[in-house]
């Protein structure tokens, strides 16, 4: 089912994977740059979550130094279209850690201050300034879904990988002709036009 959904997006006439790739990449570059500009603010932000011990110091300090650059690098990888799936996986992992941490911090604030969960607003250290928490959690869920999609997608158009690295044949559903075809390069529907429909994955049908 999941495979099928990814295939549908990959074969869509609207270049969904490309849009997601550029948006997600740009978003991570932007938040990463904000954090790199003031690593101490980010360090203080991480410390608030009490997930890392203050001693030995290099755990907290190193995280504050490395994570923003990892975000920028993953963002750049997506924008350029190189190591897309690896970048998507790292982003999904980062979001897997950040998002529950934000939720737990918000619940702690609810308990400390006795306010409604929907009124909780704080700077999560995410590089986006103070934000209403439930909105931030929704955003992060969306980002996580996009990152997971990137980690699974095989869409290679407009990417450096598509230019330099030969693709392996794979079955893809084409939105336009409504067929599943086995393709080895970029645009699914071009392959759909050029090749006859194949019932299932078959490397021999690849070109």
């Amino acid at each position, binding site marked *: 089912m999941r495979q099928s959904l990814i295939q549908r997006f990959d074969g869509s006439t609207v270049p969904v994977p490309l849009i997601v790739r550029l948006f997600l990449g740009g978003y991570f570059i932007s938040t990463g740059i904000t954090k*790199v*500009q*003031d*690593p*101490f*603010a980010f*360090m203080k932000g991480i*410390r608030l979550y009490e997930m890392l011990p*203050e*001693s*030995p*110091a*290099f755990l907290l*300090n*190193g995280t*504050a*130094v*490395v994570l*923003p*650059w*990892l975000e920028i*690098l*993953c963002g750049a*990888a997506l924008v350029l279209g190189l*190591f*897309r*799936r*690896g*970048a*998507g*996986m*790292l982003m999904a*992992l980062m979001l897997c850690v950040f998002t529950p941490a934000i939720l737990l911090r918000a619940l702690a604030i609810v308990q400390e*201050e006795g306010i409604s969960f929907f009124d909780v607003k704080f700077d999560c250290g995410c590089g986006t300034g103070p934000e209403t928490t439930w909105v931030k959690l929704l955003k992060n869920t969306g980002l996580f879904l996009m990152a997971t999609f990137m*980690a699974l997608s095989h869409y290679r158009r407009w990417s450096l990988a598509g230019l330099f690295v030969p693709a392996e044949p794979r079955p893809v559903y084409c939105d336009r002709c409504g067929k599943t075809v086995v393709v080895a390069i970029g645009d699914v529907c071009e392959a759909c036009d050029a090749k006859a429909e194949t019932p299932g994955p078959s490397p021999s049908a690849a070109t």
Partner: protein
Amino acid sequence: MKTFKKTITEALILGGIGLIVALGVNATRDSGSVKLTKNYFAKRPVAPGAQTTPFGTDLRQPELDPPAAPTSETGSALEHSYQAVTFEQAAAIFNDPNTEMGVNVFIDARNDDAYKEGHIPDALQAYHYEIERYIDNVMLYAEGAEKVVIYCNGGNCEDSIFVSNDLLEAGISYDSLYLFEEGWKAWTANNMPVETGRIEEADGE
């Protein structure tokens, strides 16, 4: 499975490059360089004879009214052993003619951007995380000052405590250190004078 392995490899390569770039940039940048092994949040031992309360003490300065215990009203529940001043007390120190003559000094513990955007007039900047950049200049004015009032954003901001620790370590007398816990938020909320821009190098006088 092959794709999964490839994805993991890509992630590891990106992680490795990220690590190298991050450490390289951190080691070479002029400002904002994090010392990897320094504990920036270390708690300092309480000064000898200091009376510790969760909200600081004000027992040494009879001319000041006792500070109100910061509660939800002031938005502060910071733990430290320094003397605390309320907004009214900070304003009184600011308006004291001695302050203009340099007898009392205000220290802004926020970062460069916040300081440039606005600070208490004549306040010196001392950002704890890069204290070596500021300490010499601050010491010129704070050493021998009667009252050194340190503030940051207010609320749960702890940077003023850390800067107080730095100043104590640098030789400033414990008795002269005052924490203005309500900080910048209270200062601006009460429409007090604000100065913008950076105060450049000390003139040494």
